[in-house]
């Protein structure tokens, strides 16, 4: 980014490296650690490779706040976090290591339930109630949107239950993929219908 290098200084500074990647990486890690220690790392994130593509994982100090599929756009998810949670966001994998490990176990069928703190602050009101209920649907089981609506005390809010699932900020860990249509077909999903089918197949095995 030496965009403004003027001719009179090029002979002095022109040969300085633009990037010093090793040092930059070291300084970045040091910043993330200092920010976490001082309580100003409001959102930490990393990506993790899974059979469903690279997932973005983001956590506040309270817990996992966002899981985003590639199709949802990682940059868009980070921009939303900056707006709705805090712009103090750093690529800082440490806070997500445990979630990443459990996701790896889940995808290799060595784990059936996630045991990590979850921060559902991005979902309010009825949507929050739906997500809270979803966490009680066991591995390998499914419910219909109508059943979910009924379980949250609003049996006629079937469409709203569908919206709550579609806007789940932490898919997979909060298992909205276990909610299917009354006729048994999978229905929509944040990560796309193929991802949903894959998760249901994984859990059925």
């Amino acid at each position, binding site marked *: 980014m*030496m965009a*403004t290098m*003027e001719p009179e200084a090029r002979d*002095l500074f022109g040969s300085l490296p633009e*990037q010093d990647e090793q040092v930059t990486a070291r300084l970045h890690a040091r910043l993330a650690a200092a920010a976490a220690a001082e309580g100003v790392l409001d959102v930490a994130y990393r990506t993790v490779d899974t059979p469903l593509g690279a997932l973005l994982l983001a956590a506040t100090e309270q817990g996992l706040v966002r899981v985003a599929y590639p199709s949802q756009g990682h940059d868009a998810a980070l921009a939303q976090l900056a707006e709705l949670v805090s712009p*103090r966001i750093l*690529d800082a994998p440490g806070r997500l290591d445990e979630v990443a490990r459990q996701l790896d176990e889940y995808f290799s069928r060595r784990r059936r339930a996630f045991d990590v703190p979850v921060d559902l602050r991005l979902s309010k009101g009825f949507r929050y109630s739906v997500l809270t209920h979803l966490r009680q649907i066991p591995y390998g089981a499914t419910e219909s949107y109508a059943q979910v609506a009924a379980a949250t005390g609003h049996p006629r809010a079937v469409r709203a239950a569908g919206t709550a699932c579609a806007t789940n900020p932490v898919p997979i860990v909060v298992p909205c993929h276990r909610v299917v249509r009354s006729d048994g077909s999978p229905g929509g999903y944040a990560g796309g219908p193929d991802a949903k089918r894959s998760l249901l197949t994984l859990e059925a095995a």
Partner: protein
Amino acid sequence: MRPFEQIVADFGPMVLRVCRAVVGPDEAEDAWSETFLAALKAYPQLDDGANVEAWLVTIAHRKAIDATRAAARRPVAAGSLPERPASTGRPEDWDGDLWAALAALPAKQRAAVAYHYLAGLPYAEIAAITGGTTDAARRAAADGIRTLRATYLARTREGEGR
């Protein structure tokens, strides 16, 4: 407001060059870390239309002044800078001669050179950071460049001639 990660990615290398020029390669990483930690804390309050480069350089400038004062308070007698520090060959020490030549400049000239030529700030912004007028900042940068040319470049050429 953009995630702070983007601010680090976009401006981290620039701030590193500025820190190396202003406080020297040995102190640069501490200065960089303090600058970005302070920036992260203050970031949510930054105005949407603010000039991020100028804001970061302002913070780095204050950190450099703090570091200089802290060094001056240290009881040990400050050793004089070696005439010509040997390069260790590590990339972070890249061109020790240039940093040594910068270190020999008066502080105002060093700051004006770094903030204009390495951070790309206009002289009006530099004057707001270092104090004084825009013209004084421009003169300080010109004087600094002239001295660097006489010291560093002359030395480099001499080295090539050997």
